[in-house]
């Protein structure tokens, strides 16, 4: 049993505070959905946990089984067991999936014998055409193909926790179902914990979260069970937005002046 703990996380991007104190605890095997409107800080949350350059943590902690993830570079966070499924996976010309996974396995001391066969099997499992596997990473792939590609990687790398950044964006319903089911299988087979960040309910219909959190203006304003997503579907974000303070420090440069 592993635990991913986000405590009082405050983060700025380009001098602007986006996350205003996030608290979240995810245990192995649990599926947490973080839902929020555009600009709430959803993608920032996923990027800062993974360690993307350009995000400055000014307060708070991210711990994986007590280990301070914020002190580690991205590659070591990944090796520690965090995996980010990106909303817009980068194109890497001239580097194939097998090239990349061979290095990713090697860096973890995992045996790469049988990797090509394992990739084929995972691709077939989620209906990702194996003919596309030889292409450069994410080059000339459709939105759905990119997410299937991301899901193949997730399945093979077997992280302790997966962060899904808008897995549902750019996906048709078939691809969404294939990817979501594979993620759900991993929560059962390898006890993977999931932090699914999404704008819409559509992913949750496939992914069946145990917990739902509403993120508005860089704060979690409500947490509950799956019924919270239903309430959101009925009432919209408006119902939650009202409770959030408008004068978040992020929005005023004067607050920076007086912060010390």
């Amino acid at each position, binding site marked *: 049993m592993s635990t991913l703990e986000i405590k009082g996380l405050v983060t700025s991007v380009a001098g602007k505070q986006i996350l205003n104190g996030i608290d979240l605890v995810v245990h192995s095997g649990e599926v947490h959905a973080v839902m929020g409107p555009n600009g709430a800080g959803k993608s920032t949350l996923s990027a800062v946990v993974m360690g993307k350059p350009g995000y400055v943590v000014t307060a708070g902690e991210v711990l994986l089984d007590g280990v301070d993830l914020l002190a580690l570079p*991205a590659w070591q966070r990944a090796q520690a067991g965090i995996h980010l499924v990106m909303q817009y996976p*980068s194109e*890497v010309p001239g580097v194939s999936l097998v090239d990349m996974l061979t290095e990713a396995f090697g860096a973890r001391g995992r045996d790469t014998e049988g990797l090509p066969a394992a990739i084929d099997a995972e691709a077939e499992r989620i209906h990702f055409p194996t003919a596309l596997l030889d292409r450069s990473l994410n080059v000339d792939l459709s939105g759905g193909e990119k997410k299937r590609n991301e899901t193949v990687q997730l399945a093979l790398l077997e992280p302790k926790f997966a962060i899904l950044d808008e897995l549902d964006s750019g996906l048709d319903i078939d691809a969404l179902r294939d990817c979501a089911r594979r993620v759900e299988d991993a929560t059962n087979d390898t006890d993977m914990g999931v932090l699914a960040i999404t704008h819409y309910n559509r992913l949750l219909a496939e992914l069946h979260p145990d917990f739902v959190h509403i993120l508005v203006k860089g704060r979690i304003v409500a947490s509950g069970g799956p019924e919270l997503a239903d309430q959101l579907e009925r009432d919209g974000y408006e119902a939650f937005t009202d409770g959030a303070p408008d004068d978040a420090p992020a929005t005023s440069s004067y607050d920076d002046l007086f912060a010390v």
Partner: protein
Amino acid sequence: MISSLPAAIDADAPDRDLRLAAAERAAGLTVPSAELEVWRYSRIAELHLDEYSPAAVRTTVTGADDLVADPAAVAALVAEMVVHDIFDELSAAYHRTVAVQVPAGRVLTEPIVVTHHVEGDGVALFPRLVVLGGADSEFTVVERFESAPGARALVVPRLLLHAGQAARVSYLGLNLLDTTVWSLGHQQATGDRDSTTLLATVALGGDYARVRTDARLVGQGATTKQVALYYADGHQMHDFRTLQDHAAPKTYSDLLFKGAVQDTAKSVYTGLIRIREEGRGSVAFQTNRNLTLSEGAWAESVPNLDIRTNDVKCSHASTVGPIDEEQRFYLESRGIPPQVAERLVVLGFFDDVLAALPVGGLRPELRAHVAAKLDRRVS
């Protein structure tokens, strides 16, 4: 050097008079100035010719045992060679020529490999390679430049290549020289009607290594493809000047040059697409991409167009920049350490050029060279 040169000309050479005349003309010339556009950005001002004496280059050839070159045909092509500067004259005086002529209709499945072994201290070497592809012939010539460790030499290679009607001629020049060697190369290629010429260059070695390539399309429907992979580290400089010269209707040229620089190394690419009045209906592409892998490294990229007729399609693209941060982060987010992620990105960057080389079997060796260079990076 110049005063000692005539002594190096073999008294029995059948073309002794031609050589002596060229040596005499060379004696009246000076090393070109970097103020000339074609030498702009170069390190030519660092060259001191008097530090070198002409010598015979040791060259080995494989894969051409049953081929015989016709001296008259070789001489005719040499006579067409455009003389630009002192180095062309010195080459005419002191060249050691290897001629490869493939008869009409002949297809060679294995490449002809010409290897120049650069040895000695303070030597100037003038290898000349003449390649004649008969009509409808198909073959590949690989020219390797290798040097003994620490050999202090000036190499002045000349390539004259002619592809006859409908011939498919591929050439790969491979610079694996030590960083004590200067190389000043010049290549002139002509393609007859419906011919296809591939001119490939891989430059990894040399201190200052320059290749000027003039690819002329003189027959309707002729095609040239030019690709290069270059990677300079330490204090190296790689310098390329290319000309895609369309002198016949409906000709096609495509150029893809990709380079990397690191440490305090430099590179220059300047390319010109020229479509002459008689080149109507022609298509030309030119792409140059450069990776700067260290703060102190520098790459220059200058594309040019000279279009003198209508009804043509041309495009050029050029980029200079560091490794893409998004690509690096994507790989690192998979648990790949930074230096491995960079190796993947750099090898990936060169992948399309490596795939376009005429000899696929060299790919693993060249990938290993690139990876080793990256490992040597200072900062």
